[in-house]
């Protein structure tokens, strides 16, 4: 069977996590490949969380926050927005494909949208195949 990607999701408490809960209460199905970690705001998400997830074997990382302008903390999501381009640049330098990390805005009312994003990302990661980060670490260890 095809490779089943593992996705780690970091969701802000006020919009995106509530949105994901809404997908649940509205019984909107999506692939079980994502496992979610709740933080208060997308601004809390350290790039370290993302790289650590990849290094520990995640095939993709999804970061979700409130839509710009709707942040519960007024501007937290802009901080997340600022970190992402640099993070992608760094991951690229390390040979990690850009599609593996994703930043999306999901409001508390967008359960449907959350489900669609997860489904779509899972599909892409399936096509992309397993992440090389963890594999490469193991391969390098073998030569020694």
């Amino acid at each position: 069977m095809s490779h089943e990607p593992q996705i780690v999701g970091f969701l802000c408490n006020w919009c995106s996590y509530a949105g994901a809960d809404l997908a649940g209460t509205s019984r909107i199905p999506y692939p079980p490949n994502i496992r979610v970690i709740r933080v208060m705001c997308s601004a809390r998400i350290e790039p370290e969380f993302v790289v650590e997830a990849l290094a520990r074997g995640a095939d993709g990382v999804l970061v979700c926050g409130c839509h710009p302008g709707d942040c519960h903390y007024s501007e937290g999501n802009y901080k997340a927005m600022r970190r992402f381009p640099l993070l992608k640049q760094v991951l690229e330098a390390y040979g990690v494909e850009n599609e593996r990390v994703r930043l999306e805005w999901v409001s508390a009312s967008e359960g449907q949208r959350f489900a669609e994003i997860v489904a779509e990302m899972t599909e892409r990661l399936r096509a992309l195949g397993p992440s090389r980060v963890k594999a490469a670490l193991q391969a390098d260890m073998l030569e020694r």
Partner: protein
Amino acid sequence: MAEPKIGVFICSCGTNISHVVDTEAVREQALVLPGVETARTYRYMCSNPGQEMIGAAVREHGLDRVVVAACSPRMHERTFRGACRAAGLNPYLFEMANIREQCSWVHADRPAATLKATALTRAAVFRVARNEPLDGLTAEMCPTTLVLGGGIAGLTAALELAEGGYPVVLVERSDRLGGNLARVDLTAPYLDSARDLLTERITRVRRHHNITVMLHSQLKALSGFVGNFTATVQTADGEAPRTIAFRLGNVVVATGYREFDASRITHYGWGKLPNVVTSFEFERMLRSGRIETKDGRPPRYAAIIHCVGSRSREFHGYCSRVCCMTALKYAQEIKSAVPDCYVSDLYIDMHAFGKGCEDFYKRGSEAKTLFLMYGKNEHPVIRRAPPGDDCEMLIEVDEQLSGERIEIPADLVVLMVGMEAREDSAEVAHLVNISQDKDGWFIESHPKLDPVATTTEGIYIAGTCAAPKDIPDTVAQARAAAGRILARIARGRIEIDGVFAEVHEERCSGCRICNELCPYSAIEFDSEKRRSHVIAAACKACGACAAACPSGAVKARHFTSEQVLAQVEGLLS
């Protein structure tokens, strides 16, 4: 850290969870995790027996940490924290794994869902092992309130608070109290006199032993946080100008509005044509009791133009909310003062939504006023009438109802100028650290559910500084703000939740990267020590500063890097 003793409690939520997730398998997997003393499943973990089961297990196994795998923490985190507290555990030594909303309700494949539920539970176990017991803080609440603005809103709030028995400092920039309302004669729709409304209040404020009024005064600086602000006010009230500082607990911002500058609409000729006047100039005529043209003749033709500066692409998109009724009031007053005067009323839409306003409109239309509708963004044009005409001016307008371009005569034209944010609103917003919308109005913490609070604890807004509104709404807001503050003062001290950011000084290098990041200005820089520190009472725990601190010196309590990374490890191992 001593080996933790963790209890894991897996809920089947009737069959809501167990119909997809093999809770027994989750339990077995949990049991082998490091630190886990016991793992149990139950039908309804949130039920009383369920909660008692947790308490019993805590006592039986001497558990010091608890994980509940059930519904969303947004649903029952409170409940289970309560259960932990009841069992003598610090509520923050508890974690939830969301295996319902984010697992059993969205996945059909039993093995996959069970695998995910296991991973989510493992993550919660790894995390809870690193959780720390947290206690909230309390801070003093200074009972003094600073009211900015001596208009109807400021006066009302000040009185409300003073009557409540607490000191108020009312700071007014101008040389008198009353604000814009003091420039008005009668008020719509019941035509009671603004003067009466005000003077009674002003004298009470003046006399009240709890209220200090400072005219000719401005706020220069505000530091600290809710309950513990320090204000610096510059005043020219009384003797020579001086600056004074005092402590206070809350602030009511009631700085009001300013009227739209009619000269910006050139084709109305205000400032050039002598008999084109703004609503406020007209109010002056009304108060002097003489409605006449510049050369002292009663007008034979009067015209009133609505939405001057409001509801237009060019100027302000919004409605100023009070002008329509005021215009009707003018029409009636002109009619009663100069019975044979022809009054025409040029409007875009007639907004008469307030209590008693629709009746007022009806009465107005009976008063033989000629209502002419002009299109949005198509302003009428006013010019001098050619010599020999029996009127001063001619107003040219595309009348929407008839669809014709018509000319109407006028000896006197009243421009219903709208409201706009004051020129000093940005300065005020910065001083008290609140935000403004695109039009410059101050932003409330929630437009519907929390309309007088702001995103900064202890700062409240009332009246037309937040948006155009009429007197009743303004007064209601002022009293609401006062009520909120009285309730907080009554509670005595401020409770501060245990989850907030803190700077570990022995790690802070004073780089000041975090200083600008806090939306609540909860981070202060101590230039003596060259260290930053977080004002816990002002912190809302978003964690932006913790994520940005390059030294790892800022810790987001209950969301530390160690805790989140432990979750990551748990999800993926």
